[in-house]
C-alpha cells in the first residue's frame, strides 16, 4: 500500500507536457506517412467547410443579385456553381471519412502497441514489483488506462488540428480588417487560454486521481474475487461491501471533481466568447462613431461577423481538451509502469546443449541431456564449461528490505548430483534460499557460484532454464491439461506429455477427466483438487527435464502413498543431477545426500540423515519428536 502511495506522488509530480510529448511521439513514430496524409485530408475537409460557409455570400452576390428584376433569368451559372460546391462538399466528406478511418487505425494501433509494450515490460520486472503492487491495479493499466487514449488519438488530434487551421485562417482575415480590434481578440483569447489552462490543470489533477482510484477499485475487486471462498466462509460480505463502498466513494469523488471542471469548460469558453463579442461591439462601435483608426461601421459589422467564426474552433477545442487531459492521466500511469526498472540482467554466460566429442564440448542445437555454460570472451572466442550442478553459497546474507535480514552468513555447497534438503521451521529462510538461486531476488552480501560461475554473470533466462522449480503455491493457466504440462517444455511431443504425467503419477486422475488430456481448466484449475494441481505442477517440471531441480513443498497436498510414487519417479528422472528439496515431512527428505537444518536464517546443522542422527543435535531431536519446528 505504502509503495502505491509513493507512486501516487510521482504521478502528480510528473509534467503533463512531458507526458503529452511522449504520448505524441508514440503516435507519430510509427505513422509518420499516415499523419501527413491525414493532415492533407484535414485541410481538404476544413477547406470544404470554409467554402461552404462562404458559399451563400457567393450565391447572393454573384448570382441572385444580378438576376433580380430580370424577366427571364438564366440559372445555368448558378447551377454550375451549385454543382461545383457539391463537388467540393463531396471531396470534403470523403476526405473527412478517410482521415477518420485512418485515425481509427492509428488510434487502435497505438493502443495495441502500448498494451503490448506494457506487457512485455511488465514481465521483465523483478518479483519485488509484483509483491508490492496489487494485481487488479496492474490489470487496470491494460484496460481502463489504455482506454483513455482512444478518444484522444482518434478524435482529439484531428479535431484540434482542424480547429487550429480554422483559427489561423479567421485570425488572418481579422488582421486585414482591423489591427486594433484583432489585438483585443488576441487579448481575450489569451485570457481564454489562461482560463483553459487553469481549469484543465484542475481537472487533470482529478483525472489522475480518478485513474488511480479506478485502479484501486479494480485491485480490490480482484483480490476479493480471488478470496471469495474465505469471504463466504467468514460471512464477511457486509465488511467487504463496506470496504468496497468506501473505495468506490473515493472514485466517485474524484470522478465528480474531474468532470465538474471538465464540464464547465465549454460553457465558460463559449460565454467568454460572447463577452468578447460585446467588448468588440462596444469598442468597435465607439471607434467607428468617433472615427478612431479609420474604422467604419461596415468594417465593425464584418469584424463582428468574423469573430463569430471563432465559435466553432473554440467549441471544438474545449470539447476535445477534456479527452486530452483524461488521456494524459491514463498515459501518466502507463508511463509510470514503463519506467519501472526491469530486473537487472547483465549476465552474459548462457546455457547451451552440448555433446561430448573426444573430451571436447561441442554445442548442439538439439536436446542432448548434457548442458554447458557458454562464455563469450572479449576477444570474440567462446569457451564452454560443463553444467554439473555445483551450487555454492559463500557468506551470503540477505533481507527483503534493507533493515531486516532473513538470511545470515549462509555457506552451503551442493555437489553435482546431490540431493540437498532444507529443514527448518516456517520462516527459517528455506524458500528464500531458492529465491536467491534463481535470482528472484539479488543478494546484498556474499557470493553465489554455480559451476564456479558467479550467478550474476549468468544470463537470467539461462540461469532459470537450468533450474526446474516446483513452488509451494501451484499456479496453472487457462488451457487444456496438455497445454499446462507442456508449459515446462513447449516443444514436447504428446508422448512426452504422457510420460511426464505418468512420472508425476497424474495419469490416473487425468484419465478420469471427461476429455482426458484435452480437458480445459479455467480459473487457476478450480475444478481440480489441490493435490491434483500439485501433480500437474510436478509433471510440468518433469517435462522440462532440467539439469537442476528445486522442489519447494512440492508434494504437501498429495497423500503419502502417491507422494512416494511421485518421489520415486522424480528420483529416477533426476538421477545424477542436483536437486534441492524443501519439505516439512522429514520422510520426503530422508534419503537426501545432505540435509541442512535451518533456524532463523542460519544453517545450524548439515550432514546426511545418519550423520545428523549421530550428531544428536537439532535434527535428531526433530526426528525423534523431542523438539518442535516453530
Amino acid at each position: 500500500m505504502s509503495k502505491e502511495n509513493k507512486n501516487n506522488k510521482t504521478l502528480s509530480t510528473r509534467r503533463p507536457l512531458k507526458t503529452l510529448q511522449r504520448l505524441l511521439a508514440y503516435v507519430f513514430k510509427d505513422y509518420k506517412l499516415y499523419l501527413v496524409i491525414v493532415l492533407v485530408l484535414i485541410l481538404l475537409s476544413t477547406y470544404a467547410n470554409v467554402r461552404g460557409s462562404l458559399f451563400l455570400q457567393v450565391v447572393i452576390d454573384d448570382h441572385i443579385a444580378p438576376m433580380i428584376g430580370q424577366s427571364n433569368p438564366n440559372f445555368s451559372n448558378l447551377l454550375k456553381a451549385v454543382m461545383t460546391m457539391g463537388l467540393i462538399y463531396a471531396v470534403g466528406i470523403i476526405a473527412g471519412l478517410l482521415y477518420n478511418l485512418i485515425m481509427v487505425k492509428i488510434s487502435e494501433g497505438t493502443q495495441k502497441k502500448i498494451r503490448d509494450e506494457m506487457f512485455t515490460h511488465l514481465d521483465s520486472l523483478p518479483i519485488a514489483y509484483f509483491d508490492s503492487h496489487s494485481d487488479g491495479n496492474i490489470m487496470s493499466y491494460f484496460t481502463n488506462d489504455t482506454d483513455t487514449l482512444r478518444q484522444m488519438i482518434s478524435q482529439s488530434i484531428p479535431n484540434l488540428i482542424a480547429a487550429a487551421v480554422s483559427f489561423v485562417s479567421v485570425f488572418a482575415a481579422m488582421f486585414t480588417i482591423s489591427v486594433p480590434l484583432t489585438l483585443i481578440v488576441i487579448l481575450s483569447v489569451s485570457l481564454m487560454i489562461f482560463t483553459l489552462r487553469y481549469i484543465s490543470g484542475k481537472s487533470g489533477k482529478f483525472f489522475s486521481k480518478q485513474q488511480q482510484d479506478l485502479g484501486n477499485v479494480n485491485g480490490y475487486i480482484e483480490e476479493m474475487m480471488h478470496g471469495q471462498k474465505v469471504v463466504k466462509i467468514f460471512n464477511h460480505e457486509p465488511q467487504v461491501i463496506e470496504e468496497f463502498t468506501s473505495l468506490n466513494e473515493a472514485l466517485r469523488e474524484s470522478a465528480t471533481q474531474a468532470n465538474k471542471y471538465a464540464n464547465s469548460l465549454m460553457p465558460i469558453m463559449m460565454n467568454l466568447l460572447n463577452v468578447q463579442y460585446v467588448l468588440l461591439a462596444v469598442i468597435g462601435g465607439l471607434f467607428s462613431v468617433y472615427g478612431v483608426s479609420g474604422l467604419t461601421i461596415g468594417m465593425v459589422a464584418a469584424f463582428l461577423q468574423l469573430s463569430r467564426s471563432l465559435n466553432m474552433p473554440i467549441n471544438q477545442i474545449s470539447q476535445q481538451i477534456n479527452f486530452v487531459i483524461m488521456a494524459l492521466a491514463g498515459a501518466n500511469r502507463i508511463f509510470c509502469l514503463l519506467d519501472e526498472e526491469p530486473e537487472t540482467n547483465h549476465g552474459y554466460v548462457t546455457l547451451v546443449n552440448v555433446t561430448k566429442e573426444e573430451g571436447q564440448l561441442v554445442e548442439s542445437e538439439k536436446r542432448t541431456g548434457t548442458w554447458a555454460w557458454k562464455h563469450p570472451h572479449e576477444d570474440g572466442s567462446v569457451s564452454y564449461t560443463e553444467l554439473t550442478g555445483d551450487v555454492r553459497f559463500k557468506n551470503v546474507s540477505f533481507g527483503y528490505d534493507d533493515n531486516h535480514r532473513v538470511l545470515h552468513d549462509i555457506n552451503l555447497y551442493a555437489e553435482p548430483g546431490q540431493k540437498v534438503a532444507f529443514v527448518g521451521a516456517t520462516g527459517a529462510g528455506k524458500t528464500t534460499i531458492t529465491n536467491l538461486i534463481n535470482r528472484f531476488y539479488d543478494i546484498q552480501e556474499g557470493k553465489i557460484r554455480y559451476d564456479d560461475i558467479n550467478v550474476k554473470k549468468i544470463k537470467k533466462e539461462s540461469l532459470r532454464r537450468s533450474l526446474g522449480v516446483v513452488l509451494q503455491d501451484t499456479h496453472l493457466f487457462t488451457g487444456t491439461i496438455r497445454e499446462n504440462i507442456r508449459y515446462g517444455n513447449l516443444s514436447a511431443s504428446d508422448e512426452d506429455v504422457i510420460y511426464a504425467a505418468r512420472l508425476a503419477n497424474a495419469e490416473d486422475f487425468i484419465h478420469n477427466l471427461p476429455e482426458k488430456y484435452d480437458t480445459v481448466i479455467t480459473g487457476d484449475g478450480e475444478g481440480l483438487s489441490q493435490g491434483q494441481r500439485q501433480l500437474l505442477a510436478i509433471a510440468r517440471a518433469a517435462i522440462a527435464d532440467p539439469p537442476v531441480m528445486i522442489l519447494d513443498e512440492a508434494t504437501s497436498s498429495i497423500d503419502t502413498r502417491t507422494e512416494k510414487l511421485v518421489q520415486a519417479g522424480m528420483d529416477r528422472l533426476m538421477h545424477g543431477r542436483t536437486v534441492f528439496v524443501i519439505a516439512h515431512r522429514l520422510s520426503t527428505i530422508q534419503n537426501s545426500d545432505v540435509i541442512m537444518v535451518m533456524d532463523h536464517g542460519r544453517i545450524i546443522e548439515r550432514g546426511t540423515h545418519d550423520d545428523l542422527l549421530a550428531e544428536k543435535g537439532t535434527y535428531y531431536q526433530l526426528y525423534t519428536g523431542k523438539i518442535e519446528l516453530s
Partner: protein
Amino acid sequence: MLKKILQNVGEYKKESIITPILVASEVAIDMVIPLVMALMIDRGIETGDTQAILRYGVVLFILAIIALVLGGLSGRFAAIASAGFAKNLRDKLFIRIQSFSFSNIDQFSTSSLITRLTTDVTNVQNAYQVSIRLLVRSPLNFVFSLIMAFSINKELSLIYLAVVPFLVIGLGVVIYFAHPIFVKVFRIYDRLNNVVQENLQGIRVVKSYVREKHEESKFKKVSEDIYKSFSRAQSIVAFNGPILQSAIYACMLLISWLGAKLVVSSSLTTGELVSMFTYTMQILMSLNMLSMVFVMMIIARTSAERISQVLDEESDLKNNDAPLYDVPDGSVVFSDVCFSYAGDENKLALKHANMSIESGEVIGIIGGTGSSKTSLVQLIPRLYDVTMGSVKVGGHDVRDYDLKTLRDQVGMVLQKNTLFRGTIKDNLRWGNEEATDEDLIRVCKVSQADDFIQEFPDKCDAMVAQGGNNLSGGQKQRLCIARALLKKPKILILDDSTSAVDTKTDRLIRAGMQKEIPGTTTFIIAQRVTSVEDADRIIVMDKGLINAIGTHEELLSENTIYQEVFDSQRKGFGEENV
C-alpha cells in the same frame, strides 16, 4: 433493461433532473443572444448610436454571465449525477456478486466480472453524463432551428423532412453493423483481463520457466483481437459523421438552388435566405453533437447489457422462505449425498455419502489425492449445494438455515488459504470483529502462530502482502487457523490446513484447539495418519466414496486402505516414532 439500470441513479435523481433544466435555460439564453446581437448591430452600430451600443452591450454581458453560470452549474450537476450513478451501479453490482454462488461466478468468470464493474460502468457513466446534457441541448437547438426555418419558408423547409428518412436508414445501418462487434469486443476485454490476471498470479512460474515470451505471445493474440475488432467497430462508427454531413450539405445545396429561384421570383428575401442558411448550420451543429452521443450510446448499450446480465443473475443459493436462525448443535448427518460440480448426475464427484456425526465429535478424514475429501466437507457450510440427498446440521437440512447463520456456526480453514492485504490483525479479525488484542494473542498461541508473529518488528501490526506473499506457507496456514478459531463455531473444518506445518506443531495445534473450542464438532482432513489417529472417528475416502468410518484401531484392523496408508508412513518414518 434501460429502466432497470436507470433505477440506480437513486439519490442522484435530483441532479439528473436539474441538469437538463439548467441546460434548457442555457439554450434559451443562447438563442436570445444572437437576436440581441443582431439588434445591437441594427440599432446601435449601423446607426452609430453609442447609447444603444452600450445598452445592448450591458444586456448581452449580463446574458453571457447568466449563461456561463447556468452552463457551469449544469456541468457540475451532470458530473455529480453521472459519477454518483456510476458509483451506485458499481455498489449494486458488487453487492450482487457477493450474493453469488460459485457456480454463478464461474458462469461469468472473475475477469469478466472485473471488466463489468469497471470498464462497462465507465462506459455507461460517460454516456449518461453526455446524455443528460447534450440530449437536451441538441434536440432543443434542433427543434428551435427547425421552427425558425419553417416560420421563414415552409416549402423550403420541407427539404429537411426529405433527408430525415435517409438519415434514419443510414444511422440504423451503422448500429446494425457496429453493435455486434462491440458485443464481441467486450468479451475480448474479459479475455485480456484473464491473461493479465493469470500472468500476474503465476508470475513466479512464468519467470521460473522463462516463459515471458510465451505469455507475451498469448497476450499479443488477445491484444491483436482487440485491435482488429475495435478497428472494425470504430471504422463503421466513423461513417456516422459523413452520413450526417451528406444530409446537411445536400440541404444547403438544395436551399441555395431553390432559395435562389425563390428570391429571384421575389417570394423570398435575401435576408430570409441568409437566415435559412444560419439555421441550417445550427441544425448541422446540433446533429453533429447528437451523432457523438449516438456513438457513445452504441458502446454504452453493449456495456449496459453486460451490466444487467449480472444484475439479473439469480443466486443459486437462496434462503428458504422461513429460514432458521439458530443452529441447535454441531451434529452433521449426510443422507445419500451425491454431488457434482457441474450439477451433472453422470459426473459425480461424491457418490452416495452417508454419515452421522454427533455434536462435539472430532472426525478425521483421510484419502488419496482427488478422493473428494474437500468436496465432502464443502457441503457443510453450503459452499455448494448437494446434487442429490441431504446434508443436515443440528438436525435440519442446511438449506433450511439462513445462510449467514449457518456459516457463522461452521468455520472452515481452506486448503488454499487466502490472506488479504492489510495487517495481521486486520486479517485475524475476519474471524471476529470484536476480538480484543488478548483474544488475538490467545488464538495465535493455540495455532502456534504467536512465536513467529512476535519476531516481526511490528508484531500483529505487520503488513500482509497480497495473497500473503510475504509469508511462508506454514505461517499462512497458522494465521488461517487462528482466524477460524476466533469465530468459535459449532463446527470447524480443517481442510489439510497443517500440510506445511511439522508434526509436532500440528499436534500442539490440535491439543490447543481442544482447550480453546471444546464441544466443537471438528473435521480434520489430513495426509498424515498422525494428524487424525487420535480423532474420535476417521472417515476413509476413496474415489468419491466413503470407504469406511471408524476409530483408528478399528480401521487399522479392518480397512485395507487405511492400513496401507499407515504402513507407508510408519516404515522408516522417524517423525511418527513417538
